[in-house]
C-alpha cells in the first residue's frame, strides 16, 4: 500500500453527554464504523468507513449520533470540484471504472419542479374527494380505436389483455439478487394488498413469490435469467427490458458475491458466478427482431398477458416508442435518466440519457401524431418522488407511473448510494442473511401500502381541485399544467403553456 | 352444599382453598391449625432471623384472602382423630367437625433421637415454627456459643439466620457430609468449605454421646461447650390421624395422583405424604414447598370435582447460605457430567436420553429452571442441542419449533 489521497467524506459526531455506550451503533453497522474502546470506556468511530446510511443515527436510543459531511476542503476551484478530484484519486489508485448506485446525484433540471398544477375557481367547480367518488382505477393495455359489434348488434366488450390498477402507480423492476428476499417480499405483499403490480426485474421469480403472481410483472431481459415457461405464466404481464434509465446502452452486472444459493436457483446460474446481462439482447437488432420476441412471449402464454417493452429515455425516444408500438407491445415503459440502479458505472449514470419529463412529452405527442397512441399504454419512471410528480406525469400523457426509489425509501433506504457494496444496513440491497433480516416484510409492506395509499389520497385531492373526478380525464391533459422558468423550447417539447398564459 | 375440612393450616391448605373455590363457590371451607397463625411458609423463619423478612410478612396470603375465599380458620386447635364412619374430625377440645371432603395436610414434626442428658440442657430449640424461631431469637446474644445438631437444610438455614448475632456456631452431624439429602460428597465439600470460611465449625460422622447443661460430649470424644442448643436432626411426617383409622402409610401418607388417600373422601397433601418421584420412579417423601403447594392445588381441585393430576413430582430445591446459592433437582443417578468451573459447581445426571438430576452451586444456578423443566417434563435430550444446553441453560438449545412454541405461543 502506498499513500492514500482519499479522506473520509463523512464524520460521525457523537454527543458524549448522551451516549450511554449501549453499542447498538456498533452492532448495527455492517461497515464497522463504530467500536467500543475498553481503554477509553467509550465508543469510537472510524469515519473512513462511513457511507452515511444513517442506520446508527436512526437506531441510537438517545439521539447521540449524527453524521455530517466533512468540512475538510480542498482549495476552492470552480472547475475542479472536490468530487472530480477524489474521483481521479480513486481511479489513479484502482485503475477501474467508478461504480455508483441509485439515481444520479448531479444537479440536472427536474422538470416536475418547474410545472405547476391547475385548480378550479368559480366555474367548473372543484370536487371534494371526501364527499364524491373519485376514480383512480386505470387499465393498461391496447385500447380499440373503434367499437365492434357482434352479428346480433351487441357491443363486443372483450379486449386484448389489460392490467387493472387501483391507482396509477406500480413498483418498477428491481431484481431479486440486487435487492433482498425480504425487500422483494415486501413489494409483492404490498402490490397484492394495494391492487397494483410489482416487477421482478431481470432476476427471475423466487419460488416463494409465485403466490403473488396475479400482482407480478415478470421481466425478460438480455441475460434471460430465471426465464422459463412457469415463470412467464406466473405473472400478470411480461416486460421485455431493452434499457434502464440509470444506465442506458449497457447491461447489468450482479457480482458473484450476491449470487447466493437461493439467488442462483432463481436465476438459473451457478452459485457465486457473476450475473452479467449483455448490453443488447443478442437476438434483437431491429424493431422486427423485437416484434419476434414480443410475439414469442405472447404465443407462449396464449395471448393472455400484456407485453411491456421497457426502454431508457434517450435522444430519439419518440421514434423508438413508435417502433415499439408498431411491433405489438401493449405497454411501453420509459425510464428516465434520474432513475435508480443497484450498480452502474458512475459516468454513465451521471451523463447518459435524458430527463423523463421531456421523453414522456415527446413520446406521447409522437404517438398521437401518428394516430397510434391508443395502441399502447405509457408507463414512466425514473425518480417519481411524490404524488404531484404522478399527477404531472399523467397530465403529460402517462397512463401510470413506475416507482422504485420512492418505494425503497419507504422501506428504509437512506440513499447512501452504496448498494453495489452489498452491505446495505437496511436489509434492502444485500444478500447477507444477518442484514436481510433487518427488513421485516410485515413492516416493509405496511410502509409501502401506506405510501401508495397516501399518494392516492393526494392524487384524488389534486384531481378534485382541478374539477376532475377520473384519472382518465387527466391523461394528457396538458392544460392542467403550466411551466415556470422554462425556455420556449422546453415548453414546446413539454407541450405546456407558461404560467400566466 | 359440600363441607370441606382441612387439617393443618399449611401451604397446601392455602392452595387447596384456592383450587376449591375455582370449582365450588358455595361449599363451606374450614381449616384447623395447631399453631395460632394463618398458613405461612416455614422455611421463611430463618430469613426472619436474618432480617430479610419479618414475622408479620410471613403469612402466605393476607387476611383478606381467607375472607374473600369464605374460608374459616380455626387456629390454635389440634385435630386428634378422624371418625371416618360419621365423617367427622374430633378436635382436642372435643368439638366434632363434619366433613364431606377432608384434606389432611398435617406436615411434619422435628425428630429428636434419644440423647443422654438432653433433659439437662436448658436452652434448647427446635427450628420448625414461628414460635421456635421467636423463642430462639430471644436468646440470641453476641456472646452466645451455639451448637446445632444436624447439618441438613433446617440446621444450616438456622446457622445462616443467627450467625451474625452469636459468637460461634458448631454443627454436629452423623452423616459424612453436610446437606446429605441434597448434595453428594463433592458438592457438600465445596459448600462446607464456604461455610467454614464464614466461621462455622463442622463435626461430621459424629454425634452427641451425652449432654450436660452447657457441654456436649461427642462419640469421638470431642467436648463442645455451648450456650444454646438447636436440634435439627430431622423431621417425621405427621401420619397418625390417617394411620389410626387404617389409611395406608409408608413413612408418609400414601396418596394417588389425585392426592387421595386409601380412605374414601380423605385427601392428603404436603410434607405428611409420599409422592411418586418421576426421576427415580419411586415413592418418596418430597417435603418441599412447591410440591406441597401443587399437591394442595390438586387435592382441592379433586375434592371439588376437578380432574387435575399430581403426576410430575420431582425433588427440586433452591437454598442459599450467605450469598452462595445451591439449586438441586431430581435424582443423582445415571451418567454424571461434571461441568464445574472455578466460579460454580455444576453436575448434571442423565439417563436414557433424559436429564434426571442436577446439582448447581454458585454462578451456575442462573436460569436453572431451564434444566428443572427438562427434568420435570422428561424432555428427550435428543430433541435439543444438549451439548450447548449443558454448557449454559439457554432456550437457544431447543429445536426451532420448540422455541417458537415457547416464545410465540400463549402459555
Amino acid at each position, binding site marked *: 500500500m502506498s499513500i492514500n489521497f482519499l479522506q473520509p467524506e463523512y464524520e460521525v459526531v457523537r454527543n458524549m453527554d448522551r451516549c450511554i455506550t449501549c453499542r447498538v451503533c456498533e452492532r448495527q453497522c455492517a461497515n464497522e464504523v463504530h467500536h467500543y474502546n475498553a481503554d477509553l470506556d467509550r465508543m469510537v468511530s472510524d469515519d473512513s468507513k462511513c457511507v452515511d446510511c444513517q442506520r446508527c443515527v436512526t437506531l441510537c*436510543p438517545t439521539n447521540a449520533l449524527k453524521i455530517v459531511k466533512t468540512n475538510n476542503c480542498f482549495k476552492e476551484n470552480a472547475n475542479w470540484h472536490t468530487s472530480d478530484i477524489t474521483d481521479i484519486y480513486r481511479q489513479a489508485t484502482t485503475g477501474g471504472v467508478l461504480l455508483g448506485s441509485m439515481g444520479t446525484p448531479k444537479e440536472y433540471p427536474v422538470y416536475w419542479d418547474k410545472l405547476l398544477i391547475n385548480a378550479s375557481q368559480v366555474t367548473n367547480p372543484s370536487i371534494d374527494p371526501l364527499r364524491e367518488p373519485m376514480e383512480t382505477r386505470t387499465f393498461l393495455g391496447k385500447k380499440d380505436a373503434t367499437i365492434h359489434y357482434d352479428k346480433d348488434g351487441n357491443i363486443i366488450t372483450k379486449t386484448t389483455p389489460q392490467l387493472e390498477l387501483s391507482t396509477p402507480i406500480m413498483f418498477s423492476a428491481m431484481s431479486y439478487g440486487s435487492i433482498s428476499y425480504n425487500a422483494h417480499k415486501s413489494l409483492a405483499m404490498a402490490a397484492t394488498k394495494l391492487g397494483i403490480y410489482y416487477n421482478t426485474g431481470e432476476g427471475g421469480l423466487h419460488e416463494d413469490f409465485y403466490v403473488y403472481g396475479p400482482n407480478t410483472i415478470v421481466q425478460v431481459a438480455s441475460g434471460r435469467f430465471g426465464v422459463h415457461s412457469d415463470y412467464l405464466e406466473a405473472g400478470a404481464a411480461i416486460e421485455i427490458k431493452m434499457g434502464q434509465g440509470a444506465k442506458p446502452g449497457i447491461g447489468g452486472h450482479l457480482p458473484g458475491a450476491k449470487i447466493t444459493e437461493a439467488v442462483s436457483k432463481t436465476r438459473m446460474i451457478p452459485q457465486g458466478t457473476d450475473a452479467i446481462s449483455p448490453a443488447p439482447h443478442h437476438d434483437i437488432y431491429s424493431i422486427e427482431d423485437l416484434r419476434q420476441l414480443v410475439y414469442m412471449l405472447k404465443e407462449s402464454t396464449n395471448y393472455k398477458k400484456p407485453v411491456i417493452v421497457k426502454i431508457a429515455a434517450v435522444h430519439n425516444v419518440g421514434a423508438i416508442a413508435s417502433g415499439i408500438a408498431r411491433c405489438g407491445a401493449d405497454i411501453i415503459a420509459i425510464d428516465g435518466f434520474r432513475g435508480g440502479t443497484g450498480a452502474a458505472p458512475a459516468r454513465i449514470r451521471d451523463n447518459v440519457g435524458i430527463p423523463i419529463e421531456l421523453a414522456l412529452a415527446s413520446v406521447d405527442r409522437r404517438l398521437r401524431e401518428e394516430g397510434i397512441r391508443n395502441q399502447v399504454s405509457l408507463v414512466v419512471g425514473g425518480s417519481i418522488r411524490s404524488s404531484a410528480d404522478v399527477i404531472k406525469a399523467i397530465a403529460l400523457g402517462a397512463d401510470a407511473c413506475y416507482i422504485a426509489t420512492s418505494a425503497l425509501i419507504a422501506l428504509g433506504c437512506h440513499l447512501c448510494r452504496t448498494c453495489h457494496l452489498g452491505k446495505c444496513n437496511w436489509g434492502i440491497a444485500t444478500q447477507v442473511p444477518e442484514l436481510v433480516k433487518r427488513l421485516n416484510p410485515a*413492516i416493509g409492506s405496511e410502509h409501502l401500502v401506506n405510501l401508495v395509499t397516501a399518494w392516492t389520497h393526494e392524487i384524488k385531492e389534486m384531481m378534485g381541485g382541478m374539477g376532475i373526478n377520473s384519472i382518465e380525464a387527466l391523461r394528457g391533459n396538458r392544460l392542467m399544467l403550466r411551466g415556470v422558468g422554462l425556455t420556449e423550447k422546453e415548453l414546446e417539447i413539454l407541450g405546456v403553456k407558461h404560467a400566466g398564459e | 352444599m359440600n363441607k370441606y375440612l382441612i387439617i393443618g393450616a399449611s401451604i397446601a391448605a392455602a392452595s387447596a382453598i384456592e383450587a376449591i373455590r375455582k370449582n365450588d363457590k358455595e361449599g363451606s371451607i374450614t381449616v384447623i391449625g395447631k399453631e395460632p397463625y394463618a398458613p405461612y411458609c416455614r422455611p421463611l423463619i430463618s430469613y426472619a432471623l436474618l432480617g430479610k423478612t419479618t414475622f408479620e410478612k410471613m403469612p402466605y396470603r393476607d387476611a383478606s384472602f381467607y375472607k374473600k375465599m369464605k374460608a374459616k380458620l380455626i387456629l390454635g386447635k389440634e385435630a386428634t382423630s378422624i371418625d371416618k364412619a360419621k365423617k367427622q374430625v374430633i378436635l382436642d377440645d372435643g368439638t366434632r367437625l363434619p366433613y364431606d371432603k377432608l384434606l389432611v395436610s398435617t406436615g411434619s414434626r422435628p425428630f429428636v433421637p434419644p440423647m443422654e442428658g438432653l433433659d439437662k440442657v436448658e436452652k434448647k430449640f427446635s427450628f420448625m415454627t414461628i414460635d421456635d424461631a421467636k423463642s430462639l431469637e430471644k436468646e440470641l446474644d453476641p456472646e452466645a456459643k451455639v451448637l446445632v445438631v444436624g447439618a441438613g437444610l433446617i440446621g444450616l438455614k438456622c446457622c445462616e439466620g443467627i450467625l451474625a448475632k452469636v459468637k460461634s456456631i458448631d454443627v454436629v452431624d452423623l452423616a459424612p457430609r453436610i446437606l446429605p439429602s441434597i448434595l453428594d460428597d463433592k458438592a457438600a465439600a465445596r459448600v462446607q468449605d464456604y461455610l467454614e470460611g464464614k466461621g462455622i465449625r463442622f463435626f461430621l460422622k459424629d454425634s452427641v454421646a451425652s449432654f450436660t447443661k452447657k457441654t456436649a460430649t461427642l462419640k469421638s470424644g470431642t467436648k463442645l461447650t455451648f450456650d444454646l442448643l438447636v436440634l435439627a436432626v430431622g423431621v417425621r411426617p405427621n401420619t397418625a390421624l390417617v394411620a389410626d383409622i387404617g389409611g395406608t402409610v409408608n413413612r408418609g401418607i400414601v396418596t394417588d395422583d389425585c392426592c387421595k388417600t386409601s380412605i374414601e373422601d380423605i385427601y392428603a397433601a404436603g410434607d405428611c405424604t409420599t409422592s411418586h418421584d418421576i426421576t427415580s420412579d419411586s415413592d418418596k417423601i418430597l417435603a418441599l414447598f412447591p410440591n406441597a403447594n*401443587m399437591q394442595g392445588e390438586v387435592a382441592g381441585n379433586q375434592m371439588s370435582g376437578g380432574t387435575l393430576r399430581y403426576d410430575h413430582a420431582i425433588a427440586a430445591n433452591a437454598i442459599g447460605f450467605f450469598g452462595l446459592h445451591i439449586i438441586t433437582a431430581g435424582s443423582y443417578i445415571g451418567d454424571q457430567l461434571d461441568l464445574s468451573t472455578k466460579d460454580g459447581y455444576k453436575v448434571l445426571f442423565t439417563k436414557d436420553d433424559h436429564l434426571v438430576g442436577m446439582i448447581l452451586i454458585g454462578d451456575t444456578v442462573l436460569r436453572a429452571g431451564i434444566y*428443572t423443566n427438562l427434568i420435570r417434563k422428561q424432555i428427550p435430550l435428543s430433541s435439543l442441542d444438549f451439548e450447548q444446553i449443558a454448557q449454559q441453560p439457554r432456550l437457544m438449545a431447543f429445536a426451532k419449533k420448540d422455541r417458537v412454541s415457547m*416464545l*410465540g*405461543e400463549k402459555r
Partner: protein
Amino acid sequence: MKRVYVEEDWCLACHLCEYWCAFSNSGKDNMVAALKNKTIKPMIQVEEGDKINFAVSCRHCEDPICVKSCISGALSIEDGVIKIDKSKCVDCYTCIMACPYGVLMPNEDEGIMQKCELCTPRGTAPYCAAHCPNQAIIYEER
C-alpha cells in the same frame, strides 16, 4: 390478555429491548439520566446464537410454576400479570429453580429477584415491544 411474544426470525440482537426495559423500570423520565455510566439490569435478555437471536422475558404463564414455588408469597398473579412484591422476596432463588424460561433474575444491587411486570409506560405497549425496531417483540393478544 395481551402478552409479549417473540418472533425470532426478526430479532437483530441489537439489544435495544434491554436498554428500553432498563429505562422503563428506572423510574426516570430520561434515558440518558437513567442509564449513563450504569450497568443495566434488564428484565428482558437477548440470547445470541450463530444466526438466530431472540429476546426472552417473562411469558406470564397462565399456570405459573414460579408463583406456585415462591416460598414467600412475593410472586402473585394480578389480572394475568405475574408481579413481584419486592418487600416480601427473600432472594431464596426458588423461582430461578422453577422457571422453565429462565427469566427470573437476581438483582444483586437490591438483593432480591426482579422480573418483567409488563410495564406499560404512558399507556403504550411495554417498552421492549414498543421500541423493537423490527417487530421481533410483539405485544398482543394471542
